[in-house]
């Protein structure tokens, strides 16, 4: 399950970065992958839309510099919170 979340996040990032998904590694940063400025915001939007979650505002400033794995962790946490909040289907 976790792998699948990671895989989906990597695919969204690879699409934004116009790279093959194999070049996205857990330790890469969006900056390393050439995703800059507004593209970072768009990537986060794509991830939010894809998983129907809201990523926390306060981590935004670091999405650029933090590793892709930390983004995957944030997605996983948002999914867990959504599941814990009850029926995720009509969230």
């Amino acid at each position: 399950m976790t792998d699948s979340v990671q895989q989906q996040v990597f695919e969204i990032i690879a699409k934004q970065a116009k790279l093959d998904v194999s070049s996205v590694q857990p330790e890469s940063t969006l900056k390393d992958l050439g995703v800059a400025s507004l593209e970072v915001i768009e990537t986060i939007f794509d991830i939010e839309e894809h998983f129907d979650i809201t990523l926390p505002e306060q981590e935004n400033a670091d999405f650029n510099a933090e590793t892709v794995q930390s983004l995957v962790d944030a997605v996983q946490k948002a999914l867990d919170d959504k599941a814990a909040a009850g029926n995720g289907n009509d969230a």
Partner: protein
Amino acid sequence: MTIASDRRVVITGMGAVGPHGLGAEALWRRLREGRGMIAPLRHPDGERLRTKIAAQVPAETDLAAGIDERTLPLLDRVSMMALGAAREAIGQSGLDFTNDGLGLRTAVIIGSGVGGDSTHDEQSRRLYAENATRTHPFTIVRLMLNAPASQISIAWGLRGPTFAVASACASTNHAVIQAAQMIRSGMADVAITGGTEACISYSALRAWEAMRVLADDTCRPFSANRRGLVLGEGAGVFVLESMERAQARGAIILAELAGGGMSADASDIVMPSAEGATTAMRQALAEAGLDPQDVDYVNAHGTGTAANDATETRAIRLAFGEHADRLAVSSTKSMHGHALGASGALELVAAIGALRDGVVPPTMNLDQPDPQCDLDYVPGTAREMPVRAVLSNSFAFGGLNAVLALRRAP
């Protein structure tokens, strides 16, 4: 370079509507007292929004005051605020536009980022949420970006060059520079200029949330713990005329609009460039005939975003060299929020107040020094000091920069 006295431009009236309510003097008093106007967001859909704070015009402020009843249905909030500010500024100037055909030679140039946003939002809701098939017949005349300029022109019979200037958060400063150029060129004898913005609508708030630049606590310009900008709204309108004309009629001169500088970064659509900002500051100084050491205060763009405040600090250092360490620099957005296209107008009230009273308004909420922001930001409390000349910075998304240079009234 010096400008001949018949081409020197002065400000003889100012008016403001903002998160303090009505009145330029009332706004200036709040700013010099360091009184913040950022408050819990007031919005019918507030529960659903992530945004919880804003700097809105207070609910009890009567924006319709003084506006003809038959005109009111034609007005979006953005035009009501512009008319309120214009009435105050024109009243203060003492000008009578019916006298000697002055209305024919008066320009109206008003900046706004988005124009009649609440009209657009409301009518879209009718169409898409309520499946209405009709919008209100005044939708177009309310929302068009030139409505504030046109309504001012109509209200006072001003028949000179009249139009809107749009450059997002730099709209006011671009408008004011354009207005000053018209007086210098002789195209107009008087110009009514400034900016207005009323864009705290559901759709605009959602759009700003999606950009992830809004602070959730407050606006903390130049502070290490800054978390973004806080949306505001308001209008500021000013009366410009040549110094010669103002002196001849015995008008009270609030300040000299000594010069302006405009540039484009031509790089990223949102990330600011120090070079572009520096170019605009240098041009403003040059046109005003000011050396860096003649300037005592810079009213910064100072949005409270990570990118702006560090870049602006670098730009001020580039433009002022060693003198940067002797400048007082403050961001009044820490108190009145970011009124986008009108922000330069609220800040021009602060710049004029600083020159006139010899008081630099503070930067509030700056409680953690940031090594990347290493100028004197006048944190927490206003400072009494001689203020001979001021720069007022506005930098916009789109990489557009416009800087005003002002000198104390002679």
